[in-house]
């Protein structure tokens, strides 16, 4: 056995180089922020509609809204706890709004609305203060007096006989409100008090969201008597929990994967140094991947990180090939025989995943960059560092001989199964062609939220009904006045939709902050004292309400004429400020956006088509249905990923074609890969799994890993005989891959388990098929 090692100075230089790179990577990683929200899976170059969607998902009210339930005990106890919890939350300053159905919520707002009723009331027009208009308005007010509803109006009668306050209040009644029990919101189904709160911090600020959640839990623990249960849901909970879950899962997977793979390697090599050396390219690859993504994207998504665990499966293969194959003739011989094949396999994998780097979705591009740089790092570590550490491969014998024999037996027997396997492949293709709805998973499939958490969220949302702003009209303009005027144009078109039942109601900032033009117009209709007094006398003649009582009305109308208009600045610090802030946003570029959430009629959905039609032709206006927009986005995303995966696969074939320079050999290599993909997809289709983007990424991985196997069989054929050591290395590499992806298949994070469930069976199939379809060595009789 020739043991030609590198000169000691070169060895030390290589190791120092490697160490320096690892340290640099570690430093970069320590400065990296890790994210877990869906934003990385939203397009980086959005169209205007997507931009609004992203804003809403990132910092909009839905992203900051907590839904809180208090379960247990009786209604009175729950209501007391709800009030105490709401008070503590309001005092904490962490929340912009906290609502639990207490009427006192509206006390301050009510006083403000009464004071500003004339610029705010939609009923004030040119007719309102004429004799006929006054008579009509007073009649309408009187029609409520003497009924239970009248008791709120009666104290205002002398100041507001035309009922402007009533008009404003009426428009604020939500069509869908939670049930009220013992003075606070309660669930319709069971024993639960309800609260809604929006945090001050943006939805994307996970640390602040986490702090807000801790505050709620601590406040509840402080105020709630025993027997009560706190339930929290909403986007911030999902985001914070997802981050924690991804962190713990990644840790768990990394540990379980490392232990499992190490055990296999120990059994195979029976040598600790070999084990350590085998894990080295893996660690290098993971570090390289995270570092590259961190440098390229400024942050790493949790799912990308979770994906890092999957790299163990492929990167360890390189080490295994080296350790086993260089044992025969030393590392120099391996560099000549084995390394070109590994290098070709690496190139094909990089080609396959390289296509993803150009995705318009940062999340997918991250996965691509991570894989490409991770595999490159692992391969380079194998090529340059392994020969320094273990120049003669692994010394240990372990189970290698048995593995080699098993491999040889398989190589001899499997080709007999070619035709049945081909038939299976054709059947799978037919099945896939017959099932048109194979690709149907949703964007939600990328998120690790559990079914229980989703069920709790759905039940709280149903209880709160109005708390879910899933449909909204978005109005934008260059300045605030333009935006408000456009919002007013929208509300004029929405009102008929309430009558037709397409929507139950709408919210708009213009209820509290009409455009200046609209305010001036309303105020211009307010008559001076003398004509108003004369008109009132005429309008109340023969009626039960005497004009003499209405002097306060005349006086307040005069005061309203003098008052300066309501502005955004004048609303700051009032009880209305949070409402206004939620519905009117200033963008970083100075433009303004008004959001008009639409409420469905009870038990129904907003009729999006009717709304879109009603809004046609309004400038700067669009309807945003978050659920549908997300679904469309995912569809585009999936379509783009499919094209890229196809391009990647073509790249793989092109690289192999260039390297093999033979159509026959290329066909022999591609055949098992294609069959492996078909059979894997066919099995998933049989199991009625809806395929999503991560299944697609998994299939790419099958092609990447499988191409290594196929190329090795091609190499074996050239060598003329099935070398037991190479076969053993292939079998071992495959076992580690199947093991590590099998672990990932069991992950509670759907995105990871999707990859695992594709790659674990896919890789096994790829090896068996490569063996079955390997060209027969020419020397076989």
């Amino acid at each position, binding site marked *: 056995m020739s043991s030609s090692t590198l000169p000691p100075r070169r060895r030390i230089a290589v190791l120092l180089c490697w160490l320096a790179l690892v340290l640099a990577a570690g430093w970069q990683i320590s400065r990296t922020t890790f994210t877990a929200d869906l934003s990385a899976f939203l397009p980086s170059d959005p169209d205007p509609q997507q931009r609004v969607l992203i804003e809403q998902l990132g910092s909009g009210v839905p992203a900051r809204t907590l839904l809180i339930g208090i379960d247990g005990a009786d209604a009175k106890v729950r209501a007391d706890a709800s009030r105490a919890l709401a008070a503590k939350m309001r005092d904490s300053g962490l929340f912009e709004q906290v609502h639990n159905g207490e009427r006192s919520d509206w006390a301050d707002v009510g006083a403000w609305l009464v004071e500003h009723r004339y610029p705010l009331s939609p009923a004030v027009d040119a007719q309102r203060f004429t004799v006929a208009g006054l008579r009509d308005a007073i009649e309408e007010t009187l029609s409520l007096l003497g009924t239970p509803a009248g*008791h709120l109006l009666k104290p205002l009668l002398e100041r507001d006989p035309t009922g402007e306050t009533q008009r404003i209040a009426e428009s604020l009644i939500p069509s869908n409100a939670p049930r009220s029990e013992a003075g606070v919101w309660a669930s319709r189904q069971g024993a639960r008090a309800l609260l809604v709160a929006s945090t001050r911090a943006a939805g994307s600020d996970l640390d602040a969201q986490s702090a807000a959640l801790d505050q709620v839990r601590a406040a509840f623990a402080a105020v709630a008597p025993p027997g009560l249960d706190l339930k929290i849901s909403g986007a911030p909970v999902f985001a914070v929990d997802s981050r924690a879950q991804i962190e713990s899962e990644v840790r768990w997977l990394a540990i379980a994967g490392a232990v499992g793979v190490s055990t296999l390697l120990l059994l195979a090599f029976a040598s600790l140094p070999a084990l350590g050396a085998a894990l080295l390219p893996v660690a290098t690859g993971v570090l390289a991947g995270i570092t590259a993504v961190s440098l390229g994207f400024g942050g790493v998504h949790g799912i990308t990180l979770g994906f890092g665990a999957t790299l163990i499966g492929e990167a360890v293969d390189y080490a295994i090939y080296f350790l086993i194959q260089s044992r025969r003739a030393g590392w120099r011989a391996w560099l000549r025989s084995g390394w070109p094949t590994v290098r070709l396999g690496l190139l094909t994998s990089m080609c396959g995943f390289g296509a993803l780097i150009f995705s318009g979705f940062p999340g997918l591009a991250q996965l691509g960059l991570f894989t490409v740089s991770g595999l490159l790092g692992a391969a380079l570590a194998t090529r340059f560092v392994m020969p320094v550490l273990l120049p003669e491969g692994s010394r240990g014998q372990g189970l290698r001989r048995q593995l080699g024999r098993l491999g040889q037996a398989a190589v001899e027997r499997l080709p007999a199964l070619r035709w049945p396997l081909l038939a299976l492949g054709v059947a799978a293709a037919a099945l896939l062609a017959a099932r048109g709805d194979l690709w149907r998973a949703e964007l939600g499939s990328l998120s690790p939220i559990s079914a229980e958490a989703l069920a709790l969220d759905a039940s709280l949302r149903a209880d709160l009904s109005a708390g879910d702003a899933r449909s909204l009209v978005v109005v934008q303009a260059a300045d605030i006045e333009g935006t408000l005027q456009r919002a007013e144009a929208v509300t004029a078109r929405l009102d008929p939709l309430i009558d037709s039942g397409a929507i139950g109601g709408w919210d708009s900032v213009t209820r509290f902050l009409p455009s200046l033009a609209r305010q001036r117009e309303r105020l211009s209709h307010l008559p001076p004292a003398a004509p108003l007094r004369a008109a009132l006398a005429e309008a109340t003649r023969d009626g039960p309400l005497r004009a003499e009582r209405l002097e306060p009305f005349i006086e307040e109308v005069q005061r309203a004429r003098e008052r300066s208009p309501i502005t955004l600045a004048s609303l700051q610090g009032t009880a209305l400020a949070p409402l206004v802030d939620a519905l009117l946003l200033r963008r970083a570029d100075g433009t303004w956006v008004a959001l008009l959430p639409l409420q469905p009629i009870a038990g129904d959905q907003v009729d999006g088509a009717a709304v879109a039609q009603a809004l046609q032709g309004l400038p700067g206006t669009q309807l945003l249905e978050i659920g549908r927009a997300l679904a469309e986005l995912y569809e585009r995303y999936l379509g783009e990923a499919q094209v890229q995966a196809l391009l990647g696969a073509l790249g793989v074939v092109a690289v192999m074609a260039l390297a093999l320079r033979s159509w026959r050999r290329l066909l022999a290599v591609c055949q098992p890969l294609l069959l492996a993909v078909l059979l894997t997809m066919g099995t998933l289709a049989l199991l009625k799994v809806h395929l999503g983007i991560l299944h697609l990424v998994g299939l790419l991985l099958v092609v990447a890993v499988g191409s290594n196997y196929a190329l090795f069989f091609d190499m074996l054929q050239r060598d003329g005989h099935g070398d037991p050591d190479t076969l053993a290395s292939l079998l071992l590499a495959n076992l580690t891959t199947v093991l590590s992806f099998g672990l990932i298949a069991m992950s509670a994070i759907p995105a990871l388990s999707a990859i695992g469930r594709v790659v674990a069976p896919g890789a096994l199939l790829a090896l068996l098929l490569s063996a079955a379809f390997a060209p027969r060595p020419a020397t076989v009789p």
Partner: protein
Amino acid sequence: MRTAAALVVLAALGLPALAFDLTALAALLAERKSAETRFTEERTVSGLDGPLRSSGTLSFSAPDRFARHTLEPRAESMVVEGNTVSIRRGGRTRQMALDAVPELTALIAAVRGTLTGDAAALQQHFRVQVEGNAALWTMTLVPRDDRLAAQVRQLQIVGQRGELRTLELSLAGSDRSLMIIEPLPPALPGSRPQAPAAAPR
């Protein structure tokens, strides 16, 4: 159901010593599955010169639909179905969830509970007192909920057998409303023949 109710009525008539109570009244009321009536309402409000008058129709169909259409002096309507209240005034329609407003829930429970003979619903929201006999009874409802009691002191309903005759609402302060209810001729197919007393105008 009807037989059982009839038995109760017979028992009430045959045994005058037995008190006519809420259970007996409820059984009587539960017989009716739908009704169409006219009403005239007179409201007395302190501070106004003279009463406010209005008129219109009331309709009810079991189990939970109740509508009040005011025709004079202004067209208005309130329709309650299940948990949804639709109010139409001045050409504008508003919808809301009934159980979001506890006071409204109680008032609607009073109306629907009376129309369907749901004694439990009445007793949940009110202290109920029944006087008289099946031929002429008076039911007085006093709100249990403090918030409603601050607005409505009591409701008093006078009826003959299964039919309502007057509904008097005493509000906080001295305001009150008296509604006189007269049956309309049965117009809906499937509605039960009316007693002779319910002859049209």
